[in-house]
């Protein structure tokens, strides 16, 4: 086998290198990659939690007694933590989504802007999560 043929052979049989260890510790995602995977995770989380949010909307509008009961329930700290997680998911999905809309319009495609806007998305979602969290706490 010639060198060139051996090379094609090697590139054809690519090693599979995806396992939990590689995902967690070895594959270094670039910053915009983090924004991207968090956009997916937050979207999935919001969809899964939709039934809970609709239930809360339902209870909050059902009657004054149901509203006050819900208010008490939302005051428990595990519930507040869950709400905080959803607020973060909504904020991240919102800001990352706006970033993608600009990317679709070919705005902010160069590396420096892509990194800067990634930081802005991560920062803005945290700031707004803290703000809304402070309002409900």
């Amino acid at each position: 086998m010639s060198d060139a043929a051996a090379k094609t052979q090697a590139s054809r049989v690519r090693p599979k290198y995806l396992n939990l260890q590689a995902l967690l510790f070895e594959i270094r995602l670039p910053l915009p990659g983090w924004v991207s995977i968090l956009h997916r995770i937050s979207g999935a989380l919001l969809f899964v939690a939709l039934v809970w949010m609709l239930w809360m909307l339902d209870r909050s509008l059902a009657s004054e007694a149901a509203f006050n009961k819900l208010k008490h329930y939302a005051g428990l700290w595990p519930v507040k933590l869950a709400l905080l997680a959803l607020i973060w998911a909504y904020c991240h999905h919102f800001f990352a989504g706006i970033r993608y809309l600009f990317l679709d319009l070919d705005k902010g495609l160069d590396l420096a802007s892509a990194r800067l806007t990634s930081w802005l998305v991560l920062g803005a979602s945290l700031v707004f999560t803290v703000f809304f969290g402070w309002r409900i706490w």
Partner: protein
Amino acid sequence: MTARIVTGAHYGLRDWLAQRITALIMAIYSVIAVIVVLSGKPINYAVWRDLFTQGWMRVATLLFIASLAWHAWVGVRDILMDYIKGAGLRLALEVMVLLTIAAYVGWTIQILWR
């Protein structure tokens, strides 16, 4: 009978565009909702109920949920296409997601116009 080509250009364009338009509708609703809630009186049951008995709020919330339904369908379908490789299981999950989303829309109408 002609063979229908189910892959190729433009087949995904409508969903791609719909996901972005519905995103904009939801973003605008979110900003308005936050401003209305934060600038109004502190929320108690009466304030909250009065907000949702106004016609514009009901219609806007319905528009939001309709946008959410389409947006979430495209997003969840993308996730299923990426991670679920078996066609049978994927189809079953997609049908479940569609039925769930339809039920949510029905439930929202019930909540808003009770």
